[in-house]
């Protein structure tokens, strides 16, 4: 049977399993509503290093080693690594994984990279190209602020629609069998641009992309919102969530009952001063590892559509007056 499904999806004949997952986060995330669920909470924002970029590399290293440890694997047993982060030229990834000596594909999908790495990793496993594949992503509040916005000590007021970049890294080991969760299908996102130029309102930039991917997923798999126990986007935040629900209603689907967003789940908006919610590659990755997967493994959620969302901008494109397009990658994860 063909595994090609609809316009932009794959339904795997032999669905790859997620056999282990690990999450490493910073102090602020540890103080949030999901704090107790994370595998490791670092008190030191530098994670023992002397700069933010190295700190983010250490996050990736820790998460990867923990996921391997949980699966009882050595780095040499991993056939491929699909990994990425938000920094220019993926330096957090390169320096984080260099010692593990695993054949690597470096990915950039902005904050959607977690979905991208899981999609490609699942394809590699399903196609029989590797017994074990590792998907790894990270973001760090300070390194992201430094690259995309202002130095940390610079005084300014963040808009209410702004999100807070999550300090964290999530790692996932995929294999043909084992574990209690599997990736049964993926819907690959397109670059969607609705002409929003406000880089401090990334929820609004990414919501159309999330809408496009979720709609495409419903079409390709011939499903309704009710066919999913949860539809979980990556980092739309409160503003983006409202827009996404409205946009999908226009297309005839009401996901308000099943939708949630990792950026909303990870922080307490009232006490943690995070405004619209969390964001970053780490946001969806650590929420998947710490909160979503355990619920799927237990069977409290049977089928989840996980849709990390990314805003595709750079400081150059922004200064040159370009809008901020979005992208979102859908991954269908089911209990087994």
């Amino acid at each position: 049977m063909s595994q090609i499904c609809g316009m932009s999806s794959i339904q795997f004949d032999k669905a790859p399993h997620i056999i282990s997952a690990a999450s490493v986060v910073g102090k602020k995330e540890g103080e949030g509503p999901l704090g107790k669920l994370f595998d490791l909470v670092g008190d030191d924002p530098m994670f023992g290093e002397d700069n933010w970029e190295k700190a983010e590399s250490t996050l990736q290293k820790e998460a990867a080693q923990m996921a391997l440890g949980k699966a009882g694997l050595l780095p040499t047993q991993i056939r491929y690594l699909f990994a990425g982060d938000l920094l220019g030229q993926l330096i957090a990834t390169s320096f984080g994984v260099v010692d593990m000596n695993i054949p690597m594909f470096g990915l950039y999908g902005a904050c959607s990279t977690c979905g991208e790495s899981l999609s490609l990793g699942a394809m590699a496993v399903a196609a029989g190209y590797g017994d074990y594949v590792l998907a790894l992503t990270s973001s760090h509040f300070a390194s992201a602020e430094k690259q995309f916005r202002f130095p940390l000590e610079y005084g300014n007021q963040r808009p209410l629609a702004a999100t807070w970049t999550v300090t964290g890294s999530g790692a996932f080991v995929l294999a043909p069998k084992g574990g209690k969760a599997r990736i049964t299908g993926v819907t690959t996102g397109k670059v969607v641009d609705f002409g929003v130029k406000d880089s401090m309102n990334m929820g609004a930039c990414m919501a159309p992309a999330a809408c496009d991917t979720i709609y495409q997923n419903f079409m390709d798999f011939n499903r309704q919102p009710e066919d999913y126990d949860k539809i979980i986007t990556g980092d739309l935040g409160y503003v983006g969530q409202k827009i996404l629900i409205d946009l999908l209603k226009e297309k005839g689907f009401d996901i308000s009952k099943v939708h949630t967003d990792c950026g909303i789940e990870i922080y307490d908006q009232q006490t943690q001063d995070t405004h619209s919610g969390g964001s970053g590659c780490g946001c969806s990755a650590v929420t998947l590892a710490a909160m979503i997967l355990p619920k799927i493994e237990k069977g409290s959620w049977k089928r989840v559509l996980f849709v990390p969302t990314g805003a595709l901008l750079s400081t150059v494109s922004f200064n040159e007056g370009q809008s901020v397009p979005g992208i979102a990658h859908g991954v269908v994860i089911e209990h087994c």
Partner: protein
Amino acid sequence: MADILKEKKNQQYNEYVKQVTPTHSLPMNMLKAFVTGGIICVIGQFLLNYCGSLGLDKDTSGGWTSMILVLLSVILTGFGIYPKLAKFGGAGTLVPITGFANSVAAPAIEFQKEGQVFGIGCKIFTIAGPVILYGVFTSWLVGLIYWLLKAVHVL
């Protein structure tokens, strides 16, 4: 035709986004900026009067006042306190000379890891640079106008 339709759709979406995006209350922000900026200026006035009472002339007193305010701002920046003040006070903390000091000190701290030359040296004025450039340019322009008006005996 397709371009016009797309542009219209984008415009509609942007208007819709504007409606659902929460913003800070402008009157509240203005009040906070007024109070915060006012307090900074009162501290400045206190320093100026104090210097005057020590017998310093007006220009020297002004110099000391600016230097002390800049020093205070840099120290508060280093301890991470100035961003908290700015979060509350907004433009009230950014417009006075203390805000300028913060915008120079913050990149110096952040980019120190990239070295004395390529880090601090190249990036210290990433935020304050435009202010310095256009400040100097504007004063040159005003000077030119002043000179011209003098030359034609208007002034």
